[in-house]
């Protein structure tokens, strides 16, 4: 238990390194605060309608 609390405290003592998934606004805000941050461009998978999904299966 004591070891765990010590590790938690360590998180706040070290400068964070962040990998930001998706929304660019968060990346920019961290960079503006001199935080080391890597942007990964990602969006949730788009869900088509069943009709479009069937057409894409056939033609793509």
């Amino acid at each position, binding site marked *: 238990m004591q070891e765990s609390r010590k590790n938690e405290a360590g998180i706040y003592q070290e400068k964070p390194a962040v990998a930001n998934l998706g929304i*660019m606004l968060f*990346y*920019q805000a961290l960079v503006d605060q001199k935080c080391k941050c890597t*942007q990964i*461009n990602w*969006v949730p998978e*788009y*869900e*088509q*309608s069943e*009709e*479009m999904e069937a*057409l*894409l299966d*056939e*033609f*793509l």
Partner: protein
Amino acid sequence: MDVKQRIAEANRQAASCITENDPYWVDIRPAGECVEGLEDHMILHSGPPIDYEDMVMLHKRGMVSAMLFEGWAKDEKEAVEIIRSGEIKIDSALNHNTVGAGTGIITKSVAMNVIEDRRNHTTAATFPAEGPVFQGGFCGWGLYNEGIAENLRYMREVLFPPMREMLAKNGGIAIKPILAEGMQMGDENHTRQTAADLLFDKQVLPQLFELDLPKEQIMRTVRYIVETPRFFHCYGQGASRAAAIAADGIEYSTMVTAMAGNGVEFGIKIAALPGQWFTAPAPMMKGRYTSTKFTEKDQLPWIGDSCVVECAGMGGIAAAASPIVCNLRGMSLQESIAQSREMENICITRNPNYVIPNLDFDCLPAGVDIRLVLKTGICPAVHGGMFNYEGGLIGAGMARVPMGCFEKAMKAFAAKYR
């Protein structure tokens, strides 16, 4: 070959019309002589086809302006009566080998730049820039008065003859090298042509000065060229349109060949179904207004054909080339790059002519595929000018082409090829 292989082969062919194009500015001629299918008593407009009664005020005013400019009516009342009688044929400019910037009103007597694509063996006509901002606006902005009409005649009769003589003498001005080099100098060739304008001037001005014409005559044309903001825009549009026309009619191709709005609806066309439009409600733009007095309520939904340049992999597709344009909307350099990277997901190929420093010298994507839009949910980003309901340009920004256009196109494609 199965249907998927046929589509892949067709899209390679269609995209090559963009990447291997070879456009030249070769002439300036009356629209009646260079716009195919433009008949007497016919008016073309921007965006997908629309009936007069359903048009926004800018297009209605454009119709009346065209009637007065051509002398088909003596006043506005008579012009409206004649239009409503059905005597005037009205059609979308993009159903012809031309492109309607802004309101895109084109009739037989207006002078048009002629763009010849020597690889694709196509010709497109584009409406020339109307000169420095004067008297409050331009015909292309949905405005009209006798001063604007007089300017159109002055361009045709005074400013353009030296240009025509120069083109006849030199055989034409190559457009692609200007687009490509401008793209490496901060233009995305839709909202920004700052570099392209200078590169164009560098070629054209010495040739104008070499003409055996009075100095004052040459200087009038030179002043028109150098004092007009975004002078080169129409040449990029003409080059793009000539490439798209070449792709139109390629069986099995799902590549987008037209994207345009009429202030009510936004429409796309695809290569395999060249006679059909696929429409959805026209989107609003997000961007920056020219004055703090303007807000979204002053803005007309998308009007104009200028995203022919996005069809050819410029403008919103090329955001990484022009962070300065994207910054007008508050975007960072990284966001500008991300916009072009996002567009890679919906494009068929890369254009080896457009090598972009901000992409670590990767090539820009080109050729939007409707299937990839539907698969990824990423709609093409299109840059452009914001128009006021009352007419006039009030800002610049970006919109996304509505997903509904792509869904309708996919269904029509399936109906043809299933």
